[in-house]
């Protein structure tokens, strides 16, 4: 790993001030550190935000669950409040990586990295999340831009993610058996205001499948999905799964998710 200057920021203001186009914020480091070791990334400055107290924790209000950016996957998975308000979100966190990754990895790190096969981005889409940064509040649909790309600026720090509590929801994924990343993952959520179907792993970036959401709006049952055509065009194709297989699995796992709601 190439060397860098390590900084531990005491507050968000300091973290943002230290940041540049040649720096990275460090939360759990579950992607950043291996990426630096593999030579896929290098930075002049690593700005650790883990010790900033206000970035961690879970708050429930009447209609939303707000999770601080540096809250660990294991904390979300075991939170009684999250299990009660949005059980599918706690279950998603429990399915990320392995126990040691869940003991370090954070929700803010996951969405800032926007890995096309990460789990949390689909939750942000399905649960109408608002991403609060030190500058602004961003709708999830606008936040995720493309493969490993978000609308965040280099000095912008995610502070918290606010999820709407749905009437019903379920996240179902076909995990890669080695990494537990999603080969495909489907997050179905029924809100008073409408239905979202967040899909991860299938394309270069998470998306809300409007065709599936439309069919489920008319009839919220897994049989309603039978008639929806899922095109494999634009879907990922790799040693784990072809694009046709992924398209088929999107349908199968969407049905599974609806049945589990």
């Amino acid at each position, binding site marked *: *790993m190439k060397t*860098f200057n390590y900084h531990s920021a005491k507050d968000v203001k300091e973290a943002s001030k230290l940041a540049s186009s040649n720096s990275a914020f460090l939360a759990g480091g579950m992607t950043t550190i291996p990426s630096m070791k593999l030579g896929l990334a290098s930075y002049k400055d690593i700005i650790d935000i883990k010790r900033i107290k206000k970035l961690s924790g879970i708050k429930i209000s009447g209609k939303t669950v707000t999770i601080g950016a540096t809250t660990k996957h294991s904390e979300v998975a075991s939170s009684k409040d999250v299990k009660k308000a949005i059980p599918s979100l706690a279950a998603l966190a429990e399915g990320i990586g392995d126990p040691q990754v869940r003991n370090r990895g954070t929700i803010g790190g996951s969405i800032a990295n926007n890995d096309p096969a990460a789990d949390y981005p689909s939750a942000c889409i399905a649960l109408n999340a608002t991403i609060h940064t030190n500058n602004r509040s961003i709708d999830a649909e606008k936040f995720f831009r493309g493969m490993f790309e978000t609308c965040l600026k280099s000095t912008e720090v995610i502070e918290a993610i606010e999820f709407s509590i749905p009437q019903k929801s379920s996240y179902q994924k076909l995990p890669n058996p080695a990494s537990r990343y999603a080969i495909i993952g489907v997050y179905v959520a029924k809100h008073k205001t409408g239905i979202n179907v967040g899909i991860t792993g299938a394309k270069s970036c998470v998306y809300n499948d409007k065709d599936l959401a439309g069919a489920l709006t008319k009839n919220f049952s897994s049989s309603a999905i039978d008639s929806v055509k899922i095109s494999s065009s634009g879907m990922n194709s790799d040693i784990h799964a072809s694009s046709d297989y992924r398209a088929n699995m999107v349908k199968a796992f969407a049905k599974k998710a609806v049945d589990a709601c």
Partner: protein
Amino acid sequence: MKKIAIEVNGKKVSKEIQDHTTLSGLLRDILNLTGTHIGCDTSQCGACVVHVDGKSIKSCTALAADLDGSKVTTIEGLASNGKLHPMQEAFKKMHGLQCGFCTPGMVMSAVDLLKNKKNPSDQEIRDWLEGNICRCTGYHNIVAAVKEAASKM
């Protein structure tokens, strides 16, 4: 360079380290605690699992600079007064290892499991050890060893 003070296996340690030194590097290269193994070095194989402030983590993917003030337990810290920890005894008794490379991480991970679940089922053990890869045993005897330890602890 950064100066850090941590506690390793109950002993206070104060060292000057490079900013990019990982915890596994600090343990192995600076403190000569080579029981913590490095396999993949990218947090997939679990050979480097240690406990930090009571929780199991992969030490290859934690910066030492960020652990200032932490308490670390490695495989060397499990035995007390020359007596193996019940998990180590169980791995020996049930033949839960062959080449032994993954064993320190397996043992540290399994000890963390039993802190939270006193009597895990086979499935719970297998799920928990998802991040610990063994290429010799086929896991069967590892699961048996964890069950054996659970019955003794």
